């Protein structure tokens, strides 16, 4: 029988040096958010910082080649958002909000859909019907079709990406409900 029984508290077996510095905390103080703990792990930080640029480039690639290959605005937008969300998971959503302020994300949500709608509007103003790609510019019909489709996909990508990031930020906001109660509502 082993004599190395874990102690009563069942503390994890790890060297004291790697534990977070044990600063005595006042009773009832909030434990640090899981996200901030994650940013202290070297491995996660390094891998995330290396992976994020590749994720973003891949997302842009999927959006840009949507009309030719598999993928498109929606899929690319989700991949792009995954890069930002990974950043938010590792470094905390406050840090993410500092990098891309909610104001910009909100505007991007509307701008993407506007780009889509404007393609339709331009073709309407040029004498066709709404979303009639064929007469978007003076060039050939097939070229216009490709242009219209691509622009629409870019719009979709922008909107999907910013909506995904917004959803992440909204559900990671831990104090949202507390704030409402503090305001007496």
């Amino acid at each position: 029988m082993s004599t190395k029984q874990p102690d009563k508290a069942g503390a994890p077996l790890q060297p004291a040096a790697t534990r977070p510095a044990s600063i005595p905390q006042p009773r009832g103080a909030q434990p640090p958010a899981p996200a901030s703990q994650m940013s202290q792990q070297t491995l996660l930080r390094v891998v995330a910082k290396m992976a994020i640029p590749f994720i973003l480039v891949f997302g842009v690639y999927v959006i840009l080649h949507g009309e030719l290959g598999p993928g498109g605005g929606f899929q690319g937008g989700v991949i792009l958002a995954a890069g930002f969300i990974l950043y938010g998971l590792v470094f905390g959503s406050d840090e993410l909000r500092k990098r891309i302020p909610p104001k910009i994300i909100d505007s991007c949500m509307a701008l993407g859909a506007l780009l889509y709608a404007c393609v339709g509007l331009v073709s309407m103003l040029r004498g066709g019907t709404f979303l009639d790609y064929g007469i978007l510019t003076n060039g050939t019909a097939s070229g216009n079709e490709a242009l219209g489709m691509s622009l629409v996909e870019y719009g979709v990508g922008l909107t999907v990406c910013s909506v995904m990031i917004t959803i992440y930020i909204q559900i990671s906001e831990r104090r949202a409900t507390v704030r409402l109660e503090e305001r007496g509502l």
Partner: protein
Amino acid sequence: MDWFPEFFRPHLPVLVVILPLFGGLLAPFTALIRRGGGIFAWLWTALITAAVFVCATVLLYDVHTGGEAITYRLGSWPEQYGIGYTVDSLNAYVIFVVALIAFLATIYAKDSVIDEIVIDRHHLFYTVWMLAIAGLLGITVTGDTFNIYVLLEISSLTVYTLIAMGGERDRRALVASLKYLVLGSIGATFILLGIGYLLMLTGTLNMADMHAKLVEMHQAGELAGNKTVMVSFAFLMVGLSLKMALFPLHLWLPNAYTYAPSSVSALVASTATKVGVYMTFRFVFTIYGGGVFDSGEDLHFLALCASAGIVVSSFSAIRQVNVKRVLAYSSVGQIAYIVLGFSLANQDGVTASVIHIFNHAVIKGGMFMAIGAVALRMGGTSVDDIKGIGKRMPLTAAAFTVGGCGLIGVPLTAGFVSKWYLVVGTMQEGYWYLAFVVLLGGVLALIYVWRLIEMIWFHEPVDPDKEVEEAPLSMLIPMWILIGASVFFGVNASWTADSAAAAARLLLAGGM
């Protein structure tokens, strides 16, 4: 209507959808001018909805003078492959109603939104507001069944959000909105399944095409005992009944209407369920009608639900202590009248349904506006809050009273015209017991409306010392336009009756 720019005239069917769509997408940027958009967000919304109303009016005029349906092909694709918008005398009429209510509700919303929504969210409120209008108008204008589903999701999701915005006043709005979300999503899924089965059967998504294929199959004898067509009809009916709050499936409605912000109640109560009814018309008559089924007996079940709904919801309305809840239960009853009308599948019955879409929209819109004004001045909508407002807010109280008379169906109000057609329709089929249910509904409405009118005019206020002034003009004007319309079209019903009769002829063109 020659003043309308010639360039945009052929684009009218799509303009009524993309105007509020663009408006909604641009509305968030009013926050750049002032925090939360403030007055600019409202001004922009009023401008857009006014333009939509003008377009809807010209569209209605064009359809009536042209005499035939206007078709618009998105992206110039033929309807079989792309999306075709088709406007005939039925949906031109519904588009006009929705656009009118949307415009007036926007004017009305100015003061009520300042009072009820947190100041830095006004631009978002109006964004969602306009997207909801775009969705509702889109459902009405499109001739493509899958497009109906997509726009239904747009309008439903935005309406859930609008109702949840009442959560800043009363947290119960969040629960009401969630309940509506769950039930509404189930309804939308059922509609999608129904459309899917239809696609499987006919290989097309365009309504006119679907109908032609079904008639072809019926003549070839392939539809008799065909399970797919039965299942699709069943899924569609359950989904649509959920969306328009037909009696056993109405449970989401009372709380949603009660806890929503006042302006949202006025908009949603008079447009969302009406658009649900319009969809039902399209599926029942345009797709399955006119020679697909041998008889209209499948609709008898709807008549049963509707009759039960009229009686049960009226009894529920009598017992409520919140005035908005009384109006919400009354809406369930009024939807049941509309369903009862078209389930008869005869000219007068369907006319009654179509005419009541307009009449109920103006009456209930006006009454929700009146109770919203009370909420603004008194801070609540319970029966205690309306006690004695006859002396304090005479114009609002009078509007509420006239609207109440319309609900009962007093002669010289619009409600009377609808009930007249409905009773004539039931008697033509020999269903005297349905006529009795309609009249019983009127008596029950008298009880729940009189209870409120008595409190408004004859009770003493709960706190007599409180200083209360009349509602602002921006609320009174839209309120009285709607209530005035309900009286005008009760006295001179020729315009509504003619439009409704034309729409009913169109729906019943091929017989049932």
